[in-house]
């Protein structure tokens, strides 16, 4: 009973003390409807074309997961599986940067047949990254035969900046764009044991963008499906 109580107290404290994230999500709809039919597939891909641009695979996968949950009839093809299956056309430096270039890739009969076979209707490109923008504080840790521990306080700020672009393969055009900026501050006080209070900036950015994308593809655009 006492251990349960302790667990509850610690859990409640963690929730109260947990770090916060501020998110801004903007979306531009370039086409009135983004129709999805049963059996349609979609692929979510990250941009990696330069040394600086390295969209995290975890974020791409997270957005794919949220889209799969939110748009029940649509099949989301995992990024790695798609890129391997269509090698060499969607590698970091060969992936088309515009829908017109995608049309030219699809002039390759083998590529077009495979896209048709998989029933891919939309491409969702994700570009951006999460970076540490500020940090302060210090912490000292030591370990010896008698034991170990840490003492100090650290804080840091992470900023996510992502933009997703949606291409329709029926018209070879861009049909929408969702951009997200999320800023979160994490704290780590340490008195013997470090207690990390982490802001899930990338996860929150994924949630914001994922929800907006689900709304984009929903038949009733005004109804936003919120995925817990």
């Amino acid at each position, binding site marked *: 009973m006492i251990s349960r109580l302790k667990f509850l107290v610690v859990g409640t404290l963690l929730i109260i003390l947990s770090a916060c994230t501020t998110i801004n999500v903007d979306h531009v709809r370039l086409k009135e409807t983004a129709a999805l039919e049963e059996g349609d597939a979609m692929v979510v891909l990250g941009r*990696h*074309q*330069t*040394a*600086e641009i*390295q969209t*995290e695979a975890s974020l791409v996968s997270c957005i794919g997961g949220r889209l799969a949950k939110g748009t029940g009839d649509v099949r989301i093809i995992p990024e790695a599986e798609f890129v*391997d*299956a*269509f*090698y*060499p*056309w969607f*590698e*970091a*430096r*060969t*992936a*088309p*940067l515009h829908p017109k*270039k995608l049309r*030219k*890739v699809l*002039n*390759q*009969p*083998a*590529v077009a047949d*495979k896209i048709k076979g998989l029933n891919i209707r939309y491409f969702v490109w994700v570009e951006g990254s999460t970076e540490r923008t500020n940090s302060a504080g210090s912490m000292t840790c030591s*370990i010896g*035969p008698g034991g170990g521990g840490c003492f100090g306080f650290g804080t840091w700020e992470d900023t996510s900046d992502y933009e997703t672009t949606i291409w329709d393969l029926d018209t070879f055009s861009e049909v929408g764009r969702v951009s997200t900026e999320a800023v979160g501050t994490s704290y780590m006080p340490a008195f013997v044991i470090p207690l990390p209070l982490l802001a899930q900036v990338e996860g929150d950015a994924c949630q914001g963008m994922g929800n907006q994308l689900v709304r984009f593809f929903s038949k009733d655009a005004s109804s936003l499906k919120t995925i817990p």
Partner: protein
Amino acid sequence: MLDKIDSRRWMGRWNSCHNRLLVLLSLTLVSGCASSIVVKPNIPSPLVEKLPLNINMVYSDTFSNYVYLENEKKRGSLKSIDFTDAQTSMFQQVFSSLTNLVEATAPSKNLSIEPEILDFQYSAPSETKLKQYEIWIKYRLKLRDKNDARVADWVVKGYGKTPTGMLRSASSAFNSATNVALRDVGAQLSIRFPRQRVVKTLLDGGSPPTIAESEPEESVEVASSDIVAEPIDEQVAQAPTFEQTEVDGSSAEAENPPLETADKGLAETEQEGKDDI
């Protein structure tokens, strides 16, 4: 008395546990230092149209036994990297998808291709502002016709990067970055090979003109902006030279610049290859 014995046993266990923890911690710290890596191949088969050409792949002993050894004492993240299997696997995958691979003595042989490593470079996160491992590989492909006369030399450059991550070792990151760089080389070859003049001539039933041993090599390179759009000759005209890319920043070189400190050799060779594609 029993209590004393129990407490000594307990203290003994506690110390042994601590010693194990210290050994484990030391091993973890040591494992973060220089490592010798053997790259496992991970190159998929290209989704390309097979050309009616018979090609023999030639791998020299130097190529087959190439191991990059780091001699710079200041660069502590890598001791050696062996990607022999991975690169051979890449060339085999690419050319077996693009053409029919034949033996050297096959009478139907149209071309022989011999890859050669010109340069290999890397950077670790501790050396750059980027939190990623990067690899640059530069190959020369020597092309000879059925009479063993030299018909072309192509230079192909690959770039690969892998972000750092929690619980990701330098070894697995270098392995992954090397595979990405090899995939990049394979992608350029897969897309550009059918557009080369030598290949076009062979496909048209002609014989490609031979070149002198001293002639400079051509570069088979790719920029994401012009990968699929233009025919090869237009790309030759449009492709900026290395000097131009520094100004307008529009090509693959500008997007993936080599390390300024470590890549002098690459830059010099690129300036020689004016016949970029």
